[in-house]
């Protein structure tokens, strides 16, 4: 007992304040608000001074923060109880979307629910880490081989369903959310290495099952110049935008690549390139510093979480957030193939932002509902 009675908790207790009773984590909130500010700033420029678009993003952010606050009020205990049910519903919806989903942008991702459409794969982004954490948390860690096998199956089924839609980006996030739970649960590095080797061996098989456009993306990634006006255009223009930004950038509203429409998807997936062009390497340092701050705070929350379930869940959510960032920037800078993932909280766009903010809501809930031991 005394080991858990750390000075941090003491400090927390003494500062039990307005923020604590509102179930808000001020450092996390600060980081998120800074990101939102940057988002609005660069969106105004990248959209060609389209103030309407900026207002729509403000509304979305407002919705996101509302969701975050609402979820932060919930005690994490019911989250654990609901985990299998949420996962089951998510899985059911994924099957439904394959059977009866609507096709948008060449992929079956949407499920019409009367007035609005939504993507069941978004539910899975939260349901996956909850489920795996639930499955592993009631038993001693690191998990046994049998438990590991079942956990792998829990990860694999929804991932394949989402990849089948096809939505490679989300499949990647959902899978990594599950995998991070396993990693935080302490599976041995030997096993991790084994899985990595297996994955490498399966790559050709994966290639065989890929859609043509996905293969094209991989080929384009390997050699963007082979088709400079077609598939490679995005990456080439993105690299030009980033590279021409230089150390200090071209200045706000002065990025020729984005202002003159050379950069495609510059408000959404490629907004990082627009930002890099106008604010340069120094601007990027600021942005990455904010991201790193949020991640560190998130990991601290995970370390300070009081039970295995919330710990695993928090760790996984934070690392999934990082995967978002890494994949997006990697793609925009030409390090990774183009998978349609937005830059979290900066890109213009709706659905994924709400999911993200819900995840931060869970983090805040975990952190602010701790039972303060020395009562």
């Amino acid at each position: 007992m005394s080991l858990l009675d750390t000075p941090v908790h003491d400090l927390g207790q003494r500062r039990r304040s307005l923020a604590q009773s509102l179930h808000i984590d001020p450092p996390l909130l600060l980081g998120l608000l800074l990101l939102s500010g940057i988002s609005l700033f660069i969106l105004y420029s990248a959209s060609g001074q389209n103030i309407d678009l900026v207002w729509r993003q403000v509304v979305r952010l407002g919705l996101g923060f509302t969701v975050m606050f609402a979820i932060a009020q919930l005690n994490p205990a019911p989250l654990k109880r609901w985990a299998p049910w949420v996962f089951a519903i998510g899985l059911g919806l994924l099957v439904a979307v394959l059977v009866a989903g609507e096709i948008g942008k060449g992929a079956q991702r949407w499920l019409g629910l009367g007035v609005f459409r939504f993507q069941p794969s978004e539910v899975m982004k939260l349901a996956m880490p909850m489920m795996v954490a639930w499955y592993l948390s009631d038993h001693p860690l690191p998990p046994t081989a049998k438990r590991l096998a079942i956990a792998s199956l829990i990860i694999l089924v929804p991932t394949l369903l989402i990849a089948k839609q096809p939505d490679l980006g989300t499949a990647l996030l959902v899978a990594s959310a599950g995998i991070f739970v396993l990693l935080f649960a302490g599976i041995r590095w030997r096993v991790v290495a084994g899985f990595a080797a297996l994955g490498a061996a399966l790559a050709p098989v994966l290639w065989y099952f890929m859609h043509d456009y996905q293969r094209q993306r991989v080929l384009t990634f390997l050699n963007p110049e082979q088709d400079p006006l077609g598939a490679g255009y995005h990456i080439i223009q993105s690299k030009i935008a980033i590279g021409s930004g230089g150390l200090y950038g071209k200045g706000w509203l002065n990025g020729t690549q984005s202002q003159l429409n050379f950069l495609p998807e510059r408000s959404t997936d490629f907004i990082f390139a627009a930002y890099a062009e106008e604010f340069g390497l120094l601007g990027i340092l600021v942005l990455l510093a904010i991201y790193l701050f949020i991640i560190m705070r998130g990991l601290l929350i995970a370390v300070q979480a009081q039970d295995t379930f919330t710990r695993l869940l928090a760790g996984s959510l934070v690392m999934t957030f990082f995967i978002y960032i890494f994949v997006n920037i990697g793609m925009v800078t030409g390090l990774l193939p183009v998978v349609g993932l937005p830059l979290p909280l900066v890109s213009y766009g709706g659905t994924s932002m709400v999911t993200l903010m819900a995840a931060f809501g869970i983090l805040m809930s975990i952190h602010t509902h701790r039972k303060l031991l020395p009562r």
Partner: protein
Amino acid sequence: MAKPTTLKDHFRETRLFTHRTITALAFTVVLMLMLMTRLVNLQVIEHDSYAVQSENNRVHIAALPPTRGLIFDRNGVLLAQNLPSYSLQIVPEQVDDVDVTIEQLRQLITITGDDEQRFRKRYQSSRRFKPITLRTRLSDEEVARFAVNRHRFPGVDITARLYRHYPQGNLAVHALGYVGRINERELQTIDTSNYEGTDFIGKTGVEKFYEDILHGEVGVQQVETNAQGRTLRVLEQTPPEPGLNLHLTLDADMQRIAEQALGEERGAVVAIDPRDGSVLVLASMPGFNPNLFVGGIDSKSYHALRDSPDQPLFNRVLRGRYPPGSTLKSFIGLAGLEYGVVEPNASIYCPGWYKLDGHDHRYRDWKKSGHGPVALNRSLVESCDVYYYDLALALGIDRISSFLEPFGFNDLTGIDISGELAGLVPSREWKRHAKREPWYPGETLITGIGQGFNLVTPLALASATATLSTYGQHLRPRIVAATEDPDTGDVVDFPVVLNIAVPVEDHANWHYIIKAMTDVVHSPRGTAQRIGLDAPYKIAGKTGTAQVFGIKQDEEYVEEDIQKRLRDHALFIAFAPAHEPKIAVAVIVENGGSGGAVAAPIARKVMDAWLLDKGHLHDTSNTGEMTP
């Protein structure tokens, strides 16, 4: 037992989790450093390269087409100018569906099948971001209608540009030529960078010959464009250099008089100032309106012009090759004198026909009853064929062809208009090559009266006449006198060029022929006496008729009975004043019949205009070599 185990596990798990969290943080930091390395690479190390690529994306070079030079006649009358016109252009990459767009545009603007066809041809081959012209020369009303509906047509725009206009219409079309759209073949030969933004190029005439001078130098403009290719602003520019204006030697008033004098006839009139080779009149009739060709002629009008039996598109002056007929007798007569073959006063008897020794064939004289005894002067005045059959035989074909050559009968005159054809003076050599046959004496006879293989263009005939009038100064005919820089007003005169000086044996021989030619016009028996009656100056001339088809031995040539198309061509050459020439003229009226009755009056009108109306009769400055 269970509780301590759980506690122990709890402790172990917490430690394990903390380790894993630290690993995760390290993992995050390492990956972020990887991203930073990549970004430093892009933004610092390769920055220069990407900065250049970004500039190349943004900055484009736009051509500023030069203004084409104007063309004036010798008195400053405007013959070719540039007028603003509105064209409708489509940028393919900015239009979703070209077919639909064209259909919608049809409701506002007339678009003919030809317009659409031309557009589609270019649409196939040109680059997606380059505007393609759909319609040219929109009316003001069409411009207004489109302007109101512009928002419905992204990627469609109206541009104002200059188009060529010939304010005098048909006048001198065969000298001026016209401009038209640049075609595939021309694209191979021109410097395409200098024609960026230019649609038109000289197709014929002066417009073609002086294309380089008229066109000017293209200017360039650095413009900032967006990804769709729309120009946003001008960064830097080098203005174009306009083409030079041309001042022709042509006299528009005289040209009009010549064309009106030809009237409905098919034919050609060329007038040259023998003192400097200046072409005063260059008329080929019928003509056509060059303005039809500028915007792209519709196929119906084009076929009508092309298929007309009167051949209005045919440049008779430069490309019409006619037998010179009796007009050649002046030159053959001169050859006889210069070679010492004839004694001017010695007569031969003309019975109305001529026969070669040992042959039955009768070479007929145009006057069936014969001219009786004929000496050189009378042979020209009355145009006796028999005299020249005899003279030609005495000269022989070799001396005839070598004598005629320096007059330019066998060559291009070298006039500065595109498309000239050379005439033909037959020779043994030529016949061996062209016909693979030896030369027959009978062919020498008909060469002596300008028939047979002899062919000459109206321009070469006028030039030879001018050469005769100046005692052998064969100047190159020229149509452009000077260029003028439209910006500075600097005028550069073109030099007079001597093609060749015809070797002169004795000036008296030339004087004799010229005197005989004045008798053709001014003596009562002269074949052109009707134009000499009231002339206030002396004209030296020679009529001619060129046979279009052969008449059989015993047939009679009755003009009225012969279809108009088969009638003889009427020819007349002249210069005046006879002993101080200021104008030399050649007239050919196709199927006109008699040279004296039909062609000579036209020449008289042209000479009157120059010498009387324009007052050149009393010029004192003479550049050519004159009568001694």
